């Protein structure tokens, strides 16, 4: 799962349409990630194809997306993986870096 996919899933705690998602991603990542509309649309299309998200409302030009159970499971799994990775690198935060 790419960083963009992870943040899109993360931002879909509640159903949102595209532009609201863009803002939610910036907000969740505390401004670290600003996702362009082209990138976001590509990610949404792919997530829909993989059935990780679905549409709740479709009024033509502004569709509202929400997580599917598979999407939630994939998000939790990715979160656990990232957390384990951070845990594995905990010692870096203690300032103990062996040289040579």
């Amino acid at each position, binding site marked *: 799962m*790419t960083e*963009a996919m992870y943040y899109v899933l993360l931002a879909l705690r509640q159903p949102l349409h*595209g*532009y609201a998602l*863009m803002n939610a991603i910036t907000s969740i990542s505390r401004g670290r990630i*600003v*996702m*362009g*509309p*082209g*990138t*976001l*649309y*590509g*990610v949404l299309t792919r997530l829909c194809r993989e059935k990780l998200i679905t549409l709740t409302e479709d009024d*033509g*030009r*502004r*569709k509202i997306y929400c997580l599917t159970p598979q999407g939630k499971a994939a998000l939790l799994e990715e979160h656990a993986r990232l957390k384990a990775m951070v845990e594995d690198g905990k010692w870096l935060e203690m300032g103990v870096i062996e040289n040579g």
Partner: protein
Amino acid sequence: MDKKEMRRCLWWLEDWQLAEQEAWLEDMSKKGWHLVKTNVGRATFEKGTPWEYRYRCDVFKADDWSEQERLQLYQDAGWEHVANRGLVQIFRASNNSTIPEIHTDPLEQARNVGRLLPGRLASFLFPLLFLSFTFYVKSPRLAQLLLQSDWLTFLSTLFFLFWILMSIVALRHLGKYMARLRRGSQPPRSVRWRQAMRLAQLRGALVILTCILLLGGRFVTPLMLRKPLFPPIPEGPLPVVRLSQVLDVFQYADSIPNQGYYAGKGDVFNYFRQDSSLLVPEQYFLAESARLQSSGVDASTIYFHCDTYRAVSPSIAKALAGSLASERPLYPTRSSLPLQPASDAGSFAGLWLLEDEDQKEVIAWQDSWVYHLSCSGSVPLEQIIGALVLHTEP
């Protein structure tokens, strides 16, 4: 009401020159010309306040209903959809840092740009298949190429080769652009678009000029200067061997009315025609038919052909003679058997012969000249060669 000043320009840059098109449109906006719409190969600009816009080209099908959401999303994010050129969608936004780039993930952008590849690939394959078809499936004989290659054939071959070259340039350009994106780098923002534009203008002008020449040469000129297929044999000396030089006494056969395709196009068995090509500038075709009288009884009709060619050089003449002798038939009415080289070429540089019951043929090459004689019936081969030797003597 004030009428806004408009300006129409030819859109010289190709759709695959994404960064160049963006830079050109940004430059136009800085000068106060803002893009309004595009037509086939043209752009319309409207005069306004000079402004530093950001123009971006994205690649997708905007007329697809499912892509309406995408357009809405871009618009919500601050990108105005201005126009499109096929798959290339042109967006514009103020040079304002709060509006994010359309693509913040180069990998995602590379996938979009990849949509241009099938079209470019088709554009590369079409002329390649066309040329392959012409040269391999139709497999023209060398003689045909030498005799029929006029400047139009030369120009159209050059045109197709140029088309293939341009397609390769396009594919290479797209490949490099996509490779850069796949490496995670953003698209180039400082491109030499002026140079690209000048090259595109030169290329476009060449293509337009070639198309006019080809259309004019292929379709208009032949209609205006319609040459008869079988013009009557003129009086006086001709640069060909005549049947009267081969046979002492003969009587011309009655003209046979032409039917079907040849109807109204002249006498298919008695004509003298001239032609030319780039490498064989002088080509003469003579057909004569005669009815032989034998003891007052109508014995047989003889069909005689003499084609004379002057090539631009002896080496071309040699190649032509060799091809005529071996790669047969050039004309379906003649025998399809190859001619055999004569053991003694006599005064000629090359001599090929064919002798069977119904058909005698001679092909001779001397300097830049090639002679091709054929005669049906029982005329002895020596008599035909003798007439040719007399004709070619200085």
